[in-house]
């Protein structure tokens, strides 16, 4: 049966089963993003105190669904697509057990729908974290469990496909760096899902009455073993996409395979206990445990991210300098294709993840500093920088690439597509910055009314807190518009975009052999190793001075901001 095709433009190779699964998972992800975005709009319009749109019950329902649809369903559906791309497509091999791929998809779909139904029935407004002893409907937990089982199957299909590729010798040498990153993500995913199973299965049994009691603190510790590690899946996946896009757009090669892969290894080794920084102000957890786990577990992972933060733009700089953009420190960056959403979205992802998400995450994950940040709106500000401008924009970037290549459609509204990353990234950056500010003024997260209407005893936030929340919400609205434009362009392209058959000659070829885009049963040639470095290349000099300067700017920002927070901590009441 004809099962394989080569993209006539890029030479990328698709196994039909993998292709269909990538499409299905990407479309499900887009639907989750749409729902999450609309709910996000309702949330910001409620937290914007001057608008205060929803009543309390609907606000908490919308916030629960927003968190789960965005952070779990949108991102993990998309990550399944990424795993299929990183294995079958990049390694040019058949997908292992395609039928199980559909089991993966259907379980995740059923789980996602089930949990959403539970939330919108109104009995499960428990937030994404569903802290016990607040109880949701049983199908809230069951949906999450089914979704996780589906994701686990997806991980094993990915591992199986790596085995198939190795056995059938579809590539020479070692797996590509991007696939290595996906392996990292999948390994972390297995650990994550195991933590999730350990806590969600008993919680489900508790919700139907088989277990009498779940300890609230134990729940927090184990739940965050899933909750935080799952964010590290995102980091591993979106860093892989950064490398992929640096390669696709610039032909960049990693500065050092050893360094980049070593950094990924740090993620695998040191992330599992990073859950510790969610329980820094919890009772019954010793300071020694907190310090050990936040430092060894987190800082070696932080080190890994700081390494990628240098090597990803560094590889772009080296590639650009190789093309002759050698003037000064930054010509390589000025002459980058800023109008290409594949690049601009990826680059905004890189910068905001480092400067906003990364720095704030480390600061609030410091044992004592957490005292002045825990559960304020600073926390969602931080993770909107990591998962929205970071992960989501990386996923958007690769989607822009996949529409012509995978779906074989010409993108509609190219002018708007050029602007979309700036609208989305700009809006969300405003949201993040101003919510960070409101958080330092003590504004609470997950809170319907900062006026405390109806409270017996009141409290007045300073006027500035209202201003910051208002501007942040305004940024959120812009961000939602940017997200809407993304969905309009991508979904619109699938429906209305001109078919790119057989070859439109619009896309860059990567030097792979090209063929007509029809399905055959002919296997491609073995994926060769990358071309060796040109002669005369030496690694002892600074190859990417501009990137090094940018990295130093990041470091200085980090150091200054870190100590400002210690200073702020020193001004509060003495505690011991």
């Amino acid at each position, binding site marked *: 049966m004809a099962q394989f095709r080569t993209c006539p433009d890029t030479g990328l190779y698709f196994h039909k089963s993998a292709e269909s699964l990538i499409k299905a998972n990407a479309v499900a992800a887009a639907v989750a993003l749409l729902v999450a975005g609309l709910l996000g709009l309702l949330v910001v319009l409620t937290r914007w105190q001057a608008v205060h749109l929803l009543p309390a019950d609907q606000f908490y329902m919308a916030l629960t669904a927003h968190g789960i649809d965005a952070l779990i369903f949108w991102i993990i559906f998309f990550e399944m697509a990424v795993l299929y791309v990183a294995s079958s497509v990049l390694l040019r091999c058949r997908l292992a057990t395609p039928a199980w791929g559909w089991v993966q998809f259907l379980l995740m779909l059923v789980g996602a729908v089930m949990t959403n139904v539970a939330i919108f029935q109104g009995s499960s407004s428990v*937030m994404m974290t569903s*802290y016990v*002893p*607040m109880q949701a409907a049983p199908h809230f937990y069951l949906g999450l469990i089914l979704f996780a089982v589906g994701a686990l199957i997806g991980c094993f299909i990915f591992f199986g496909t790596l085995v198939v590729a190795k056995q059938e010798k579809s590539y020479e*040498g070692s797996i*590509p*760096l*991007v696939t290595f990153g996906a392996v990292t993500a999948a390994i972390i995913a297995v650990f994550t899902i195991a933590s999730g199973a350990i806590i969600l299965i008993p919680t489900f049994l508790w919700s139907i009455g088989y277990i009498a009691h779940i300890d*609230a*603190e134990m729940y*927090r510790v184990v739940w965050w073993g899933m909750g935080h590690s799952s964010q590290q899946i995102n980091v591993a996946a979106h860093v892989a996409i950064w490398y*992929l896009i640096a390669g*696709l757009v610039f032909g960049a*090669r990693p500065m*050092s*395979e*050893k*360094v980049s892969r070593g950094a990924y290894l740090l993620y695998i080794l040191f992330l599992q206990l990073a859950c510790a920084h969610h329980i820094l*102000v919890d009772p*019954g957890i*010793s*300071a020694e445990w907190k310090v050990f786990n936040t*430092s060894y577990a987190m*800082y070696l992972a932080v*080190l890994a991210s*700081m390494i990628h933060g*240098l090597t990803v733009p*560094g590889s772009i700089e080296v590639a650009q300098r190789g093309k002759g953009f050698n003037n000064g420190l930054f010509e390589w960056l000025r002459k980058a294709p800023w109008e290409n959403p594949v690049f601009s979205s990826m680059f905004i992802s890189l910068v905001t993840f480092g400067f906003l998400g990364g720095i704030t995450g480390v600061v609030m994950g410091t*044992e004592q500093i957490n005292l*002045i*940040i*825990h559960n*304020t709106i600073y926390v969602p500000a931080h993770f909107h920088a990591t998962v929205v401008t970071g992960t989501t924009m990386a996923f958007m970037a690769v989607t822009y690439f996949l529409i012509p290549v995978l779906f074989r459609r010409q993108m509609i509204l190219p002018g708007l597509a050029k602007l979309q990353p700036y609208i989305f990234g700009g809006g969300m950056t405003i949201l993040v910055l101003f919510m960070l500010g409101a958080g330092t003024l*003590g504004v*609470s*997260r*997950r*809170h*319907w*009314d900062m006026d*405390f209407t*109806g*409270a*017996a*005893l*009141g*409290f007045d*936030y300073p006027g500035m807190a209202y201003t910051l929340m208002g501007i942040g919400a305004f940024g959120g609205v812009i961000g939602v518009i940017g997200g809407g434009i993304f969905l309009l362009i991508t979904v619109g392209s699938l429906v209305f975009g001109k078919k790119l058959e057989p070859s439109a000659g619009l896309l860059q070829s990567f030097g792979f052999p090209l063929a007509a885009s029809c399905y055959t049963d002919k296997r491609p040639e073995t*994926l060769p*190793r990358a071309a*060796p470095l040109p002669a005369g290349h030496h*690694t002892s000099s600074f190859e990417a001075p501009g990137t*090094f300067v940018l990295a130093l700017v990041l*470091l200085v920002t980090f150091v200054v901001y870190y100590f400002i927070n210690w200073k702020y901590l*020193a001004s*509060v*009441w*003495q*505690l*011991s």
Partner: protein
Amino acid sequence: MTSFMPPADRIWWKVPVGREEIVWILIALTWCLIMFFMMPYWHIYGKQNLSNEAYQTTPAKFGAKVQEGIDQYKTGEEAGVPIIHPPAGSDVYMLGRLWQWWPILELEKDKTYRLHLSSMDWQHGFSVQPININMQVVPGYEMVLTVTPDQSGEYGVVCNEYCGIGHHTMVGKIYVKE
């Protein structure tokens, strides 16, 4: 474009690393070590640390302690919530429940208190504003904070862990008197 192709060198782990990356890794590692040492440093020299003191408890046991404190030290009421003025240096009990912080505390500036916190039902967040000190309050656990308020004034205790439909009405008070 080796990021999505197998590495050019078969033995890629033996390819020497560029100086730029080595320098950056050393800088970043140094910074990570500094951040690590800041935490033990603050435990020794800093004034804002959480103790390791916590006990398992039950709502009934903890509620009785709170009531004892109210019986002994009550000085008045505000909006139906008792105000207590415990002696400096004493053990002070405060509970969180749907949707109240109970009782209101009246403390003296620059005096030290052992503040016990727990929840009667769901999880709550003890967020003292505008000073912005935040703790997680978990049912079944009694956390003890040794606290020395060094600024006088009226402080709100906002609940910042979502606790259901009345969450936004859960506000308590702490008065710090000169």
